[in-house]
């Protein structure tokens, strides 16, 4: 997980989205321990209060829960919740792309075409 301070998206949101994505893609499985607030803050070089805020959001959304004496662990129902949840980071990236397209005078149909081409490109690259 990388934090982009240059991105206008709040850092706590980027952290929450990073963990959400990790859960959705199976990097974190239900029952796994996620890094403590302090460890996460040190690893990402961000204010611990920011990490705390991210964890609180994930807790509210039911992705993680606090287990006494152990730390924060991923909930059983998490993967489904993560996949269905709104990934703000992704949404923000797409919004930025849309803004650039609008600035360049590209139409809605135009950006649809670009999107389809980019998706095919990514699939092709990922193939063995």
């Amino acid at each position, binding site marked *: 997980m990388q*934090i982009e*301070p*240059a*991105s*206008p*998206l*709040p*850092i*706590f949101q980027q952290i929450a989205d990073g963990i959400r994505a990790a859960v959705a893609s199976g990097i974190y499985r239900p029952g796994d321990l996620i890094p403590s*607030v*302090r460890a996460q*803050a*040190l690893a*990402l*070089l*961000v*204010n*611990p*209060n*920011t990490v705390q805020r991210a964890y609180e959001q994930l807790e509210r959304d039911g992705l993680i829960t606090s287990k006494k004496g152990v730390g924060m662990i991923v909930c059983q129902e998490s993967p489904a919740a993560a996949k269905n949840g709104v990934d703000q980071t992704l949404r*923000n990236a797409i919004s930025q792309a849309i*803004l650039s397209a*609008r*600035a360049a005078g590209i139409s809605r149909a135009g950006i649809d075409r670009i999107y389809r081409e980019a998706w095919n490109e990514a699939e092709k690259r990922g193939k063995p």
Partner: protein
Amino acid sequence: MNTAADEFPIVLQNVTRRFGKAIAVNDLSLRVARGTTLGFIGLNGAGKTTTIRMLVGLLKPHAGRITVAGCSIPNQRDAVKTKLGYVPDRPTVYQWMRVQQAIEFTRSFYPNWNTHRCNELMKMFDLDRNKQAKHLSKGQAAKLSLLLALCHDPEVLILDEPTSGFDPLVREEFLEGVLAVTSERQQTVLFSSHTLSDVQRLADSVAIMHEGKLLLHSPVDALLEKTKRIRAVLDDESASRQTPPGMIFQQLRGREWTITVQNFTSEQVEFIRSRNHVSQVDVLDLNLDDVFKDFVRGKKETV
């Protein structure tokens, strides 16, 4: 009075400092809440270092009151020294001392020296104990200053442009050192920096200084949420433009007109749309770097 001091370990009230005819700090009032980190930003010469030197008792203010950890500065300076950690913009350790010597020398003055912390930081910073301070590189010297400032577990930590001129790796090590300590305890931190991405990651709130005055003081997230840039395309670039209330800064590039506003509401978008001949209006989010620059540019224009 005691509870206020407990809540706000750093308080500046109407602080002013002149150098000859020039006013370096002009009627500054600012306070930092316990356990939070304040990012102190501004152009070179805005008054950040002067303010910091007054805070730690190295410079006398010409007006106003300063309170750190409940003690009045500079009168009760001596009482606060064991609770205060200060890392200056340039290293001040005795250049002829070796790293180990400097540590032992400093330790002898603090009854509350944390040896465990000292060893932990020595390992993290990978400093050569036998090297003389004058032979340390810029980054190593700063890490030593930081170590000496942190090892007595200060309640208040003040850093003056701690990572300016560092290579990227050293910068990370330095910030790790700061975070390793501040994330464990309820420490109040004030640091000035030109690296706004650092401020965005580490600070809870930010204060912008400009020409000796405090331009704004706000939590980082709230500031970024409320400050937006509205981009509009003008039909006629030479026509007079009507700017919305709350505008900080505007720029015209050909037909592209950008207006940065604070306390963004959709009404401002409406204002621009209705009072000007524009097509295609977009609202852009800004990072701290953008916000800072627009605030300062806006101030420069009004002068």
